[in-house]
């Protein structure tokens, strides 16, 4: 039997959840025995080359590109697992949802922020090639159907490992109290 195929992506996240995935230490060798990776920043495959069994999503949706990638994952993956607070609740990027408009966000990022140094012409990037920023940050389950959620910022490596092994082997998921945390 061929190995289950896993794809991963980071949407509006910080890559911390992917770091946590790598934090399984030497078990990464067991992981390579267990699964095959397809589209993922880990192996740098940019587009889906085959249908996948498990899609791991980090981060919510803050721009049109995130929505596009998330919908692609739903289309190509049998099971979608959201890891981390940003995908589950919007997380830190969603802090703009309740007290800042897009205009305020863009002006802060490109014009007013103390670290802005060389923008004398006061340009806010607005090229067709750039993804459009959304009106607010959306948790993944507001865009497509998500099958499983693993909380944490970042989720503990043991949580990701336990969940992934359970999904691949079909065993019951073991979620000890110490590893299910929201921070």
């Amino acid at each position, binding site marked *: 039997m061929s190995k289950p195929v896993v794809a991963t992506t980071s949407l509006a996240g910080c890559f911390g959840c992917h770091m946590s995935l790598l934090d399984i230490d030497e078990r990464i060798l067991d992981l390579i025995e267990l699964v095959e990776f397809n589209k993922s920043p880990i192996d740098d495959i940019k587009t889906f080359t085959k249908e996948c069994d498990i899609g791991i999503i980090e981060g919510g949706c803050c721009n049109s590109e995130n929505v596009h990638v998330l919908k692609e994952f739903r289309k190509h993956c049998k099971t979608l697992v*959201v890891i981390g*607070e940003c995908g*589950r*609740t*919007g*997380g*830190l990027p*969603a*802090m703009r*949802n*309740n*007290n800042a408009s897009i205009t305020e966000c863009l002006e802060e990022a490109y014009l007013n922020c103390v670290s802005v140094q060389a923008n004398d012409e006061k340009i806010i990037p607005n090229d067709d090639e750039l993804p459009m920023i959304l009106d*607010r940050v959306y*948790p993944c*389950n*507001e865009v497509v159907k*998500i099958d*499983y*959620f*693993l*909380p944490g*910022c970042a989720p503990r490596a043991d949580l990701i490992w336990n969940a992934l092994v359970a999904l691949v082997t079909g065993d019951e998921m073991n*979620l000890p*109290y*110490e590893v*299910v*945390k*929201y*921070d």
Partner: protein
Amino acid sequence: MSMVIITINGKEFSAKTGEMVVDVARKNGIYIPTLCNMEGVIPQGSCRICTCLIDGRTMAACTTPVSHRMNVETNNAELEKIRTTIVELLFAEGNHYCPTCERSGNCDLQALAYRFNVLVSQFKQIFPTRNVDAKNPKILIDHNRCIQCKRCIRRMGGSGKPAWFSFKDRGHKVKVNIDHELTADFTDEMAQKAMDTCPVGAILKKEKGFDVPIGRRKYDTEPIGTEIEKEGAKL
């Protein structure tokens, strides 16, 4: 004071008349989850986390006084579902960004979600627009995290003493208001008491936070209520 006999989860216990079910359970090592209730503070029964099956009806255990031959069931699948739903609603209603919160790991709302194994809220988040009031020199109030449990209002000041905290506005706009004049000379002890009274991270003592490392915080290794249950195991 006369005594009564009540049955909790099939076991008989004696209790004083006038005592609330939640307090009798706690004394006998049976944990009933609470949020708006606090030991020593007049109960109000607003959050309904402590909902139990009392004589066949779902009642808030924190505002139900014991009566002779009362029969209480503190936990079953339906009650667990009610409690989980309340926790999920509270998370959806406010702006609870746990990773940024100073109270994370010591927060009662978060601890209840951990205890009920909430992996995601079934409700869509509202993301309401709320502000932070940091005018007081000792404490700050983050309305984003407030769950309107009124613990600060009931415990701090009141009954003859001036009310430091009060509710402002009505309905879904209701929020805790702090009297800046009365609290201008807040001491460190009072600020600490206010922070300890809040079950979430809405009232914070200034210049303090993230002082306990991850892994050693109150609810990092043991679920909320474990202390009470451990006492119960000894009895």
